[in-house]
């Protein structure tokens, strides 16, 4: 099980319930990177590729497990940004995995 520990420097993440975890079988889903790239186009309308962390934080390069945990936390309303609850609310487990796999490649 993964927790928020690895993401603790991010002010936004610090607001979330640190106990939130995602089941290992969900974290183990292998993401379709090409589908993730397509879905990601909907994220980068708001998330800048890097730099300034005020406002909307950058997400490119996030480790996949952290990304998956964050999105599931929004989907289950453990985090409270209404935009992100909405975005995550319509993503399937496979789609979250696809996005995570894609964004992780941007950090390599």
């Amino acid at each position, binding site marked *: 099980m993964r927790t928020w520990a690895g993401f603790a420097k991010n002010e936004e993440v610090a607001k979330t319930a640190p106990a939130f975890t995602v089941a290992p079988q969900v974290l183990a889903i292998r993401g379709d990177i090409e589908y993730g790239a397509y*879905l990601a186009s909907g994220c980068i*309308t708001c998330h800048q*590729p890097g730099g300034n962390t005020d406002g*909307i934080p950058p997400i490119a390069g996030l480790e996949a497990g952290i990304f998956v945990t964050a999105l599931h936390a929004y989907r289950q309303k453990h985090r409270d940004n*209404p*935009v992100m609850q*909405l*975005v995550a*609310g*319509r993503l399937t487990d496979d789609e979250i995995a696809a996005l995570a796999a894609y964004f992780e490649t941007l950090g390599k």
Partner: protein
Amino acid sequence: MKHMQGARPEMKLDRRLFLGASAAASAVLCAPCVLADGHGRPRVVVVGGGAGGATAARYIARDSRGAVDVTLVEPTRSYYTCFFSNLYLGGFKEIGDIGHTYGGLTAGGVNVVHDHAIGVDRTARTVTLAGGSVLKYDRLILAPGIDFVEMSVPGWDISSQNLMPHAYKAGSQTELLKARLMAMPDGGVFAMVAPPNPYRCPPGPYERVSMVAHYLKANNPTAKIIVADPKPKFSKMALFQEGWANHYAGMIDWIGEEFGGGNVGVDPAAGTLTIDGEKTRVDVCNVIPAMKAGRIADIAGVTDGNWAPVNAADMSTRADPDIHVLGDASQQGDMPKSGFSANSQAKVCANAVRGALTGSRVFPAKFSNTCWSLIDTNDGVKVGATYEATEEKIARVDGFISQTGESAEVRRVTYEESESWYAAITADMFG
């Protein structure tokens, strides 16, 4: 010497001829590769370099890695975004902050042509430009934004736009409206003729009212704002009305449909606005007429009434599967006519067009929109939704809106989000 003198011009001539012949010969020699490289590649022509067109052009060029020849036709060399143009009116942005050029797109492989598209031949599949060039296409993407419905505000036409600016296509018009605002006499009247539905937003009329009020409160506090509105209600109405009461008490008089706000006429030369038979002399009159799809959509014959009906799955028009319409000009269903919507639609369209032309994977259409508005310093609000493609339309799935009575901290964070979003979406559009 005589011989030499005679020979020189001859040599020059020969040289010129040789160069000409050489160029022609290279052209002939290269003809197969030109054909393979140019005519062999599928061609996409995009008309309009805003949130829809620039995004579509950039994504198709980038993701096809040169397999698709992408030309973007956009008359302006510097594009000013409608979103955040109200913040310029309020003094939160400089005009340069909302201006963008197309160098990033050209570097990304898009052939950017600064010209006006004036004709579409759907049989020959060509677009004619005002400069005389003719562009062939396999797929045509029209993202022309809006034009105005003539005589929708009696007394106003495009020749009046310097006397009564619309500021609904950002740039010089926005600068003019700001100059007029700044030149208002103490205690003067700023009037807005608000548009009927459906209208482009941003630049939202009600955010604009807020930004004008913000400016006046600091610089001309006894001035008044009159809004004549043909609608009985508007987006985020409760949020704006709460904000106006909190920040600008007594300054803004909103006259909705019920009180004759739709029964208006203007006399630009006299500087008067008549609302429901009552004529008022105003110092600034911001006339936002009724809107329709940018003219080229009409010329292409893909409109039905004022807008171009499209299929939600790929933004192709109902009239012609090889022509797609994005953003404000499209009649797509439930999405607002925002830059965010156009950008979202562009990505769905780019994925579908690339798939059709190169065989790349096509994924399900998913759309989203969020619109932030600034009411006063650090008082930001937002509304958003997600959408999916149905046979009939782009259909709303779920949404949210800021709540009245939110804390100052929530509103500040919301405004900060909008700043991040602006940086992100403009990078997404222009590279």
